């Protein structure tokens, strides 16, 4: 009888995919995602697009908060910077969309240096407040730089055409979001198992011990900021394209809180956790609505006409329940289920 899943070498320990069943399920998931745009209606597809865009952004925040332990309340600032960078480059200056995406990553990355550098000596709440202030500053800068950003009027964004492929339809745009989400997932998983990722985790767990081991705290913290902002900026560009209209109003501060909620519910420091957390947070109101609509049409109508208030209540409730009963998040629950499955009927 199998009594556990043992790793016998360092290579096995850091392997991205360590068993044939995981390969198989990954392939099934990928094929399902590829087929989904042609099986789902436009409404369901909009959830898939939001999930893929949010996964990209959440994975970006996960590098900073999950891996490195630096709490950011201002990630919506990087999101909106990325969206504006893309909109300005592509819609205003008619650059190719690929250049727009590059700009959507690079501009927030540069902005992160501005907020990251003075924040290097800050931790916990102090850093959270600094990043929060950044998100407000960036909104004001965007509103004031009318010559570039159109101020409060915002900028229209068209769906892109890249290398002759039009992403105008929802299905095609979903593939673009899927490509970015998959690339980001692959990149962050590789960062986590690399020397850089281990340094991030060392800083998160005990920065004094990390410094004693020779890790350059300033350099690695800045790198975490830059990488995180780059990825979040790309997610911002995708979100701007999804909205078809980039304005500061489309990127409310609540998105920063939602991103943190995703990481907490999913499981801090885990890429899989960020994915699971995103799926849960995005689909929670809709799933609840579907469940309640089974009971009566009146309940369905209540969810339809009071959706946003109920959504806020559900977020709060879920976060409280997770922090109390499953602080390791969904990924912790998943590990528990796997362990029980492998060891059953034994309890260790």
């Amino acid at each position: 009888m199998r009594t556990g899943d043992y790793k016998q070498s360092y290579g096995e320990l850091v392997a991205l995919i360590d068993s044939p069943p995981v390969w198989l399920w990954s392939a099934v998931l990928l094929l399902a995602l590829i087929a989904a745009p042609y099986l789902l209606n436009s409404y369901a597809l909009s959830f898939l697009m939001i999930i893929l865009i949010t996964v990209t952004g959440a994975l970006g925040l996960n590098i900073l908060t999950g891996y490195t332990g630096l709490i950011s309340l201002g990630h919506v600032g990087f999101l909106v910077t990325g969206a504006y960078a893309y909109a300005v480059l592509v819609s205003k200056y008619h650059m190719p969309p690929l250049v727009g995406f590059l700009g959507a990553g690079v501009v927030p990355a540069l902005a992160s240096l501005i907020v990251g550098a003075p924040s290097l000596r800050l931790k916990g709440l102090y850093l959270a407040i600094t990043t929060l202030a950044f998100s407000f500053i960036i909104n004001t800068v965007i509103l004031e730089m009318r010559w570039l950003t159109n101020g409060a009027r915002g900028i229209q964004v068209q769906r892109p055409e890249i290398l002759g492929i039009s992403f105008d339809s929802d299905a095609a745009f979903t593939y673009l979001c899927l490509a970015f989400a998959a690339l980001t997932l692959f990149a962050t998983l590789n960062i986590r198992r690399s020397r850089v990722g281990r340094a991030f985790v060392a800083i998160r767990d005990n920065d004094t011990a990390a410094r004693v081991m020779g890790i350059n705290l300033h350099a690695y913290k800045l790198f975490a900021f830059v990488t995180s902002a780059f990825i979040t900026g790309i997610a911002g560009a995708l979100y701007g394209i999804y909205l078809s209209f980039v304005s500061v109003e489309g990127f409310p501060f609540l998105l920063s809180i939602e991103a943190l909620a995703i990481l907490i519910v999913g499981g801090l420091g885990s890429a899989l956790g960020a994915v699971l957390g995103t799926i849960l947070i995005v689909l929670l109101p809709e799933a609840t609505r579907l469940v309640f609509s089974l009971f009566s049409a009146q309940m369905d109508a209540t969810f339809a006409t009071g959706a946003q208030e109920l959504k806020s209540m559900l977020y709060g409730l879920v976060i409280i329940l997770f922090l109390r009963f499953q602080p390791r998040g969904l990924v912790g629950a998943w590990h528990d289920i796997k362990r029980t499955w492998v060891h059953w009927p034994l309890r260790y």
Partner: protein
Amino acid sequence: MIRHLAAASLLLTTACLAIGPASAADPGITDTEILIGDVEPLTGPPALLGVAASIGHKIAIAEANAAGGINGRKIKYVLEDDGYVTARTIQGVKKVIDVDKVFAMIGISGSGQSIAVMPVLEKSGIPTVIDVAPVKFLWEPPRKNVFVVGQSYEEGIVHLVNFLADKNPGKKWGLITQDDDYGITVRDGFDTVVKAKKLNVVYSGNYKKGQQDFSSDMLQLKDSGAEVFLAGGIIGENIAMMKELEKLSIKPVTGIFWPGRIEPVLKLMGPAGDGIYAVDYVEPFAGAAGRAFLDKAKPLVSEAEFKGINRYTMTGYAAAKVLIAAIERCGKQPTWACTIAELEKTKNVETGVMAPISFGPGVRFSNQKLQIMQADTATLSFKPVN
């Protein structure tokens, strides 16, 4: 194995991209029902607008249903809350079109939200009448299936400032606007008249959206000696400004814009709001047309809904009337194409709550006639003055 999987995935992706999505034709109609969809902010502060507009839609629908529906089919109304969140507006519109499968759309949230959702509406081809936030982008350039009932913010502000300028020649002017799209529009309209009439502007302020405290701004307005004041807030901001002016014991001639021209605002302003001017394109409730509308609405909605009626109820009612009339003119087998064609043929349709509504070939904006009203706090109402 990985290479095979990658190749299969690539093949599937290419095939899917090549095929393109399937299309469905003219849903939302059964032998007994016609579905009309709407997405509004029903929660949060903008709910004051969204809920009122949806009540207007309900009144028009209830009225039509009481008269036998549209050529024998009852109208069913599907309403979705977006909480004034743009992403949610897009999802809401997709839900009512794709899941609920409505025949036509009405309402559609705020200005930024309706702008963002325009590609979805245009691509779907569904007949749509927008009534909550009339902004130029929605009708310039004209879109085949999207019609807008109302008047532009620019025209509204020009009308109000012209009226106040003619009534108060040679006076000093003050203006404060919000730092968003709405504020820019108000300022643009104001600047047009300033240039044309060479107004003496002694105070020009800009406040951050969500600002609650206007003590410093109003003190500056007082120090500037402004005698005519254009309060460019929406709802709560205008109340705070008027209360602050009351504290400072000054009462300049004040003008406000239609988003804040609702009776609860007057109640909250108290005596400070007495005599302020407002511009609007819907009838005041204090007038004969307004009272007639309230009499009509009372038996058609619940008591709670009746209390939620404000000017947006009238815009919602008018838009729904125009849409229903267009579907009705299509006869027993209405289609999207016919409804759009009939909407285009809309000429001088009387709704009783605003001037007659017309559209035309390439004209998707009803361009409603404006009027100026003055607040009377004793009766908590606005009365027409021109």
